[in-house]
């Protein structure tokens, strides 16, 4: 449908403007005209143009190249064709360098303009079709903020839908970066509690006493620094959902307190005498094997059974590789928009590399990899070279020799300490580089006694 596309003609000479507009209207396009760059920008703020024909020389105000650059800022997808009566190689080069799709000289051969317009519109049609198909495809695989075409994840989505309306406690298990919190949110926002608060707590990020106060609140003077009464996360989540992340890392005392809350939905603030009653749905998550922790005596079995009423297991990314292209393209589209970069696809070799990567940090690692590649990329398509940082040398790579005499926990200790040091103690960046989330990093820092 030609009529769906709008074209803008910008020329200070009315006869030029009108003659080109009339010719394009005969071809079925909606055409607007502007007598100056300023007028063109004004129109472009409210109307989307597939093509803008911009005269190079316009007296007073902004010239054609400047107009083009401003138009591109307003509508990066728009194609700008520079037209001029005074053709020189220099101006042509400048125009093309600054982003003009084409450069034509007046008076133009009708065949030239006709071919040019049909070529640009053909590409626009393909782009739009591509966008619609992708959106349709993405929509089919989307569940709240989760995206997957894997049958195992579709089962997870279905389970979440099935239990969303219940108050049953849910235990979400999966490796770091698989999206446990997103599943918890989907659970909350699919059910009757969607209008009530969703409160998340990372149990690994806080010391035992702090976590206790964080969860249950405290009374004024309960401990040094408790200068006023404060509500805990359970109270804040009343009527809604509390999400207890990294539940496998809590102390024996907190395990007991939590068991009581789960059994009775009642608790005391730290230092308080008044019993507080709440209506809260508990969703817990962990990356550790809780059943194994129970067997080893590190986790209370009664709490485990209380938590594990509905078990949701999120498969790691390496076990659902069919999701890699879908996720990679979605992250690319979103991050490119956020970074203001005109990168819209991944090359075949880049996709192959992403498909082959083991993704120990799962979806979060993939998201970080896309962002990192985008930051340093120069082209309109991300290539395998943009993901060179994923190719970790397997053998004697530069500056890294695989130790063969150390226990695995010692290797982990050293790697975390060295990475943290190199990144000047920045936990966020260290977690991103190591492909784990911050709460997991905090837990490991504590475990190994690493100072920031």
């Amino acid at each position: 449908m030609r009529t769906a596309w709008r074209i803008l003609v910008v020329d200070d000479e009315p006869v030029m403007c009108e003659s080109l507009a009339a010719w394009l209207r005969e071809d079925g396009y909606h055409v607007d005209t502007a007598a100056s760059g300023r007028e063109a920008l004004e129109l472009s703020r409210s109307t989307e143009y597939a093509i803008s024909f911009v005269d190079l020389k316009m007296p007073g105000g902004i010239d054609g190249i400047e107009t083009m650059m401003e138009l591109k800022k307003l509508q990066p997808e728009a194609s700008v064709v520079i037209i001029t009566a005074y053709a020189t190689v220099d101006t042509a080069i400048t125009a093309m360098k600054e982003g003009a799709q084409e450069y034509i000289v007046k008076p133009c051969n009708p065949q030239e303009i006709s071919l040019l317009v049909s070529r640009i519109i053909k590409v626009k049609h393909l782009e739009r079709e591509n966008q619609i198909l992708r959106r349709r495809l993405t929509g089919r695989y989307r569940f709240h903020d989760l995206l997957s075409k894997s049958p195992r994840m579709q089962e997870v989505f279905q389970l979440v839908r099935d239990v969303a309306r219940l108050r049953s406690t849910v235990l979400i298990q999966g490796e770091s970066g698989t999206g446990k919190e997103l599943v918890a949110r989907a659970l909350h926002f699919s059910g009757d509690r969607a209008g009530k608060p969703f409160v998340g707590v990372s149990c690994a990020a806080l010391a035992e006493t702090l976590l206790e106060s964080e969860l249950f609140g405290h009374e004024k003077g309960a401990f040094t620094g408790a200068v006023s009464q404060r509500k805990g996360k359970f109270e804040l989540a009343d009527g809604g959902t509390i999400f207890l992340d990294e539940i496998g890392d809590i102390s024996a005392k907190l395990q007991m307190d939590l068991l009581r809350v789960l059994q009775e939905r009642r608790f005391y603030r730290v230092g308080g005498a008044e019993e507080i009653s709440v209506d809260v749905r508990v969703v817990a998550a962990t990356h550790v094997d809780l059943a194994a922790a129970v067997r080893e005596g590190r986790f209370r079995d009664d709490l485990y059974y209380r938590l594990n009423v509905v078990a949701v297991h999120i498969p790691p990314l390496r076990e659902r590789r069919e999701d890699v292209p879908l996720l990679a393209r979605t992250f690319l589209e979103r991050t490119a928009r956020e970074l203001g970069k005109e990168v819209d696809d991944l090359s075949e070799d880049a996709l192959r590399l992403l498909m082959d990567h083991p993704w120990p940090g799962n979806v979060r690692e993939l998201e970080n990899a896309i962002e990192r590649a985008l930051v340093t990329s120069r082209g309109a398509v991300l290539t395998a070279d943009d993901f060179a940082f994923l190719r970790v040398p397997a053998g004697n790579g530069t500056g890294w020799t695989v130790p063969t005499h150390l226990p695995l926990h010692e290797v982990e200790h050293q790697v975390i300490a060295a990475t943290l040091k190199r990144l000047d103690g920045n936990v966020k960046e260290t977690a991103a580089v190591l492909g784990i989330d911050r709460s997991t990093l905090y837990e490991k820092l504590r475990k190994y006694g690493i100072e920031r």
Partner: protein
Amino acid sequence: MNGVLVVGMGAVDPDLVDEAAAAAALWGPPIERIPPLPEPEGARDAGRGQWAAAPFLKNLNAALPAGALRILGVTERDLFVPVLSFVFGQAQMEGPAAVVSLARLRPEFYGLPPDPPLLRARARKEAVHEVGHTFGLVHCPHESCPMSLSVGVWQVDRKGEAPCRSCAALARGRAERARRR
């Protein structure tokens, strides 16, 4: 006269104007040939060696009597619009006037021997095309329809004289509406 007027502008072979008139009749409204009009003054661009189309349309508008639907001018002059190197014709989209140039329809323009039947066929197609624009038709994607875009004579030769069904239906409806107004 509630129809389409067809007129030669300047020195034009009257038979070719008749051809244009006969072809334009297929849009439905009655056709009337009127006496020739002079070429517009000041339309010639010495630098380009061509004639601007706009003054032709202006004079045709001025010559349109009350009650007439449309007016089609036929000229031997090589026409242009400022932004393009040439046009085979020019029309006011859903407006009263259109003009057809015979200059580039003649084989002689391309160094070929004259071919009167070919020229007549080309003139008929372009007359249908430009009058079609005055009824609001845009270029048709069907190559065989006279409303398809021509930027070279090979495209004029490729298309037929009878509009496709959708262009014919659209133009008939719009001509009928214009006549009622």
